């Protein structure tokens, strides 16, 4: 495993919040020294921001009504109670 691969694995653990304190300080230290890994880490963080900024999509109008119309008939006992 090259230095790069090892730290990339740690970066992903970090992004998943699944990292030991030891690895975290190792990563921090390494990022200060290694420009290539710094760039990689930056790109990963940027990718996540991009994903989260992607178009917001809403259900079409009348969606709920449509679902309600297609449900099987209600149990009779409930109708009676109302």
């Amino acid at each position: 495993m090259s230095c790069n691969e090892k730290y990339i694995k740690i970066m992903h653990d970090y992004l998943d919040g699944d990292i030991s304190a030891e690895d975290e300080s190792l990563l921090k230290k390494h990022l200060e020294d290694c420009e290539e890994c710094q760039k990689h880490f930056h790109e990963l963080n940027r990718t996540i921001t991009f994903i989260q900024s992607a178009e917001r999509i809403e259900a079409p109008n009348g969606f709920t009504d449509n679902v309600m119309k297609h449900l099987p008939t209600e149990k009779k006992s409930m109708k009676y109670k109302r």
Partner: protein
Amino acid sequence: MDQFIKKQIIQVKKGDQSAFSDVVTFYQDKIYRHCYRMLGNKHEAEDIAQEAFIRAYVNIDSFDENRKFSTWLYRIATNLTIDRMRKRKPDFHLDAEVKGTDGLDMYSQLASTERLPGEEAESRELKRYIHHEISQLPSRYRSIIMLRYLEEFSLKEISEILDVPLGTVKTRIHRGREALRKRLRHV
């Protein structure tokens, strides 16, 4: 909100159908969006999202109230989208040319062609581009990336929704992030 949904679900279990409309209203955008991102087609997304809610209603008795409803609902929706994708022709691809449309591919049909002035258009273009790049990821990565970053589920919840081991979720999210990093690094 969780408490309200919980209460409504108990009502639904008792046979009160009208309580289900609150559940649908609350989750409709999330579930529709999830289906849309998985399928890349508005018509299919609506169809499958609707089917997911109907299945949830019909099977509500098998839902364990001590668990999270959203996880259960996403699992139904995800399984339905996967079934739908399997039924498509194996060579189906968003880049594939649609017959009789003079070189229009599926992607050009996804998004509105309407142009907006200035910066707004730029940001809209960028969002469409990002959406396109996400849609090009293999579905096993795409579903996890979406559940994690758009729906904000934990890795453990994702493992429940997709019914795959936690270790697999981790591997796939790493690969998915790397694949998207490569696709989006030049933006």
